[in-house]
């Protein structure tokens, strides 16, 4: 058994800073309630942060190896699949069935599915120390990822599906997947993606809107253009915390998908770079924790979860600065969204557990 190491204080600090910073930014970006009530989004975010941090503290004190059980890997996956099916039956919100309502709480099963997929793949890699480039590993992984992705696509939640696919790919790549698999996958998957995007008019318009936002500032290019205006008008030092004008209904989803734009507008280049640096430090500590892990499960659990957070962050920021078409991916820690925050903090709890018990 590995000895118990000290908790990774840097990782823990970065996580707490991101959570606190996220709360501040959600508070700031939350537009005044038209009904005159208190900032509702901030309150739900605060509750999610409390729940998430508690879950993180519990998980980091439990040895991650107790999760390396086949029943757990399958149970997590199974639960995700059931919830993903259930969410399709639920009433759609904003035209998509991403949320499951239980009383006053809403829950996004795709967030759980991300972690479940990471745990499942980490378990599969752990199960076969001989390597991943064999059907014993690839078939269950492919089935699990394929099923989850298809269900998430039904929501429809193209961003989350692509993200789950990407995380799975990155994990298998890091696990040493043979180039014989990688090369064909890199040919086939982008082709499938292109087809998939082109088949659905709203995705096609989003893509075209991304390519030329100026042509249609009030339509599909609107979000990106407003985001660019927000970021650009921030300058080096920003307009000052709480001083964003773009959050006043110019920038849709200012508290969720485009919170990075508000950070950049209010805190400028300095704030934007600080957020990126925090994710870089988190990634650095996450990969180090995985590298130090004594077993394959711990390593790939850590790497998978770190990659999940990092890729989400990079995709989200890329959307806000106009490098990538709008996908609907939240920025971990900062974007408003209870499920996302709680699940990110659960991931961090697992990550800290790996770093602690390495």
């Amino acid at each position, binding site marked *: 058994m590995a000895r118990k190491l000290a908790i990774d204080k840097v990782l823990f600090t970065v996580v707490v800073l991101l959570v606190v910073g996220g709360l501040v930014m959600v508070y700031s970006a939350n537009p005044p309630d038209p009904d005159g009530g208190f900032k509702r989004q901030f309150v739900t975010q605060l509750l999610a942060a409390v729940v998430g941090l508690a879950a993180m503290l519990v998980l980091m004190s439990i040895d991650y190896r107790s999760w390396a059980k086949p029943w757990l890997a399958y149970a997590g996956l199974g639960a995700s699949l059931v919830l993903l099916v259930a969410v399709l039956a639920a009433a759609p919100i904003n035209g998509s069935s991403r949320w499951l309502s239980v009383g006053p709480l809403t829950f996004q099963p795709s967030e759980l599915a991300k972690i479940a997929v990471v745990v499942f793949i980490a378990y599969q890699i752990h199960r076969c120390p001989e390597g991943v480039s064999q059907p014993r590993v690839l078939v269950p992984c492919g089935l699990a990822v394929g099923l989850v992705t298809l269900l998430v696509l039904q929501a429809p939640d193209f961003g989350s599906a692509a993200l789950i696919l990407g995380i799975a790919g*990155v994990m298998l790549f890091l696990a040493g997947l043979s180039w014989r698999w990688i090369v064909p996958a890199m040919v086939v998957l982008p082709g499938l993606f292109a087809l998939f995007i082109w088949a659905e008019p709203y995705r096609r318009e989003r893509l075209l809107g991304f390519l030329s936002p100026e042509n249609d500032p009030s339509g599909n290019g609107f979000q990106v253009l407003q985001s*660019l205006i927000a970021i*650009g008008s921030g300058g080096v030092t920003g307009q000052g915390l709480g001083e964003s004008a773009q959050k*006043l*209904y*110019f920038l849709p989803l200012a508290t969720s998908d485009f919170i990075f734009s508000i950070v950049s507008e209010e805190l*400028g280049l300095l704030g934007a770079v600080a957020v990126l640096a925090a994710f870089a430090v988190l990634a650095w500590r996450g990969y180090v924790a995985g590298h130090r892990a*004594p077993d394959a499960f711990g390593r790939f659990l850590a790497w998978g979860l770190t*990659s999940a957070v990092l890729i989400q962050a990079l995709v989200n920021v890329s959307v806000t*600065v106009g490098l990538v078409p709008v996908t609907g991916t939240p920025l971990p820690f900062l974007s408003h969204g209870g499920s996302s925050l709680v699940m990110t903090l659960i991931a961090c709890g697992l990550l800290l557990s790996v770093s602690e018990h390495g």
Partner: protein
Amino acid sequence: MNAPGPRARRVRRRYVGRLVVFMVVAGLWMGAIAVRLFDLQIRGADEYRERAARQQRSEVVLNPKRGTIYDARGRSLAVSVETHTLYAETAKVEKPAVVAAEIAPLVGRSRERIEALLNKPGHVPLARKLDREVADRIDLSAFPGLYFLDESKRKYPMGSLMAHVLGFVGTDRSLAGLEYRYDTEVAGEAVRRHVLRDGQQRLVVVPGSLGEPKPGADLHLTIDATIQHLAERALRETIASYDASAGSVVILAPEDSAVLAMASYPTFDPNRFGDFGPNERRNRALQDSYEPGSTFKTITAAGAFERSVVHPDQIMDCGNGRIRVGKARIKDHKPFPELTFRTAIAKSSNVCAIKAGLLAGSETMQELVTAFGFGEVTGIDLDGEHPGIVPLRVWDQETTAYASFGHGLAVTPLQLANAYATVANGGVWNRPYLVRALEREGEVVDVRPRNRGHRVISKATAYRVIRLLEEVVVSGTGRKAAIAGYRVAGKTGTAEKSDASGYSETGRVAGFVGIAPARAPRLVCLVMIDEPTVSTSGGEVAAPAFQRIISEALFYLGATPSRQPMGWSQPVWLQPAPAPLEGPPQIRVAAAAGQAAADQDIAPTEGELWTAAGSS
């Protein structure tokens, strides 16, 4: 850590290789983001800040209330009333076609126009300045996205009364008359507020929302609406009964040329000025000039008296209606025998006027005509004034001869009325004016012309001219201007209208200018009727109109009837005055000594008369 075996170490090395590849990719990605942020926030900061400002900031103009225009007795002539402008927040309007079809008839605009407006983005005014009754007919709850904003609109409660003087205000700016001339004062100051708008074009913040719009100043006019009404009514009826094309009336207070009435016909209603053309909107009292004709003989007489070359009772040969001046042969309107100068003017003999003018001399006449303000705008507080036409070169005998009976030059009705006011007040020319005071938030500021006018003729001359003009009304061409109980002085005029091809055969301008009461002048009134048809003479057409207006106006003003209507009474300005008198020394003696002495002293001696007459 477990001691890993060689295979495990190899596997881990491979992992590390893959991890490095992945981290390099992620690092490059993050680098790309950093470059992009640099591009946006440092290189593009100014441009994006400007774009942000353009969409977030906007200006809201708060319009002030326009000042009220009052007549001399505080009656409202032009007021601003609250009206309602219908706006649409087009994003919230469902089915623009249906809304347009329902709204268009209510606001009186075309359905296509409303629908086109509803299809524009943002907040669009659908119909400006609707009255309360119209606005009340629109049930806003039935049309989501529509709302009203208050705006003030100009109303002229007295309709067309003194329309030419007041002018009018368009939807957003003043366009004519006093409204235009005093726009800076009356309009007030609008306040431009910078506000932030949100993405749905709602106003969010009003930073520094200080300053209310400054309301416009009220104007207090010299015009009395009652006198104006008398003038307009007589003008309208005279034009109707003589089937004339146009006309104007000017009434001045002689002491300082304050305008008491100024009417022009055809006229218009400033409440719907758009329905009228330039012909109706033209203020003929000062925008048009006419050949004055015989009314100008007053100036000639003033010149002759000023130079003491003619005595009122001097017998003059009216040449049986013919005179030769240089190469010009001038015919009178009818032949007269020898007459006294007084009678000749009363009967309006051209020959006699020419002789008097030539006796006074070309130089004197030219100087005097200029000094009376002809050939130059009076400077009244209205725009578009015509300067009239006075020959600029040094006058020769012919020019003087023609000018002596009002030919060969053109004057505006206002100029001519003001020349008579100059005579009526004892010889001082004053700048006519319409606005006597501005009232700003209860504080009244006197804006009457500050500098006193300039003396044109001596008081003695002025007095003699008035006595001369009395005879016109008593026994001459102006008998129809006589008013029971008052002495009236005045002069008729019938001028031929000239156009590019010369004098017209039929077109006449009938005029009468009078002073009442003659010995204590309170009103100077000009009546000018353009192209009367049934009769064309000033005495037949204009004098009765003068009589109607002034008899009623004197009654309205409560003017003291003249003590000796047909005899002699001393004009007020010849009564002992506290201020030192400016006239020649003998007038001062006259003022002190009384009427007989005055008559004696200012009359030229017989010798002088004959010398002057003989020299011509």
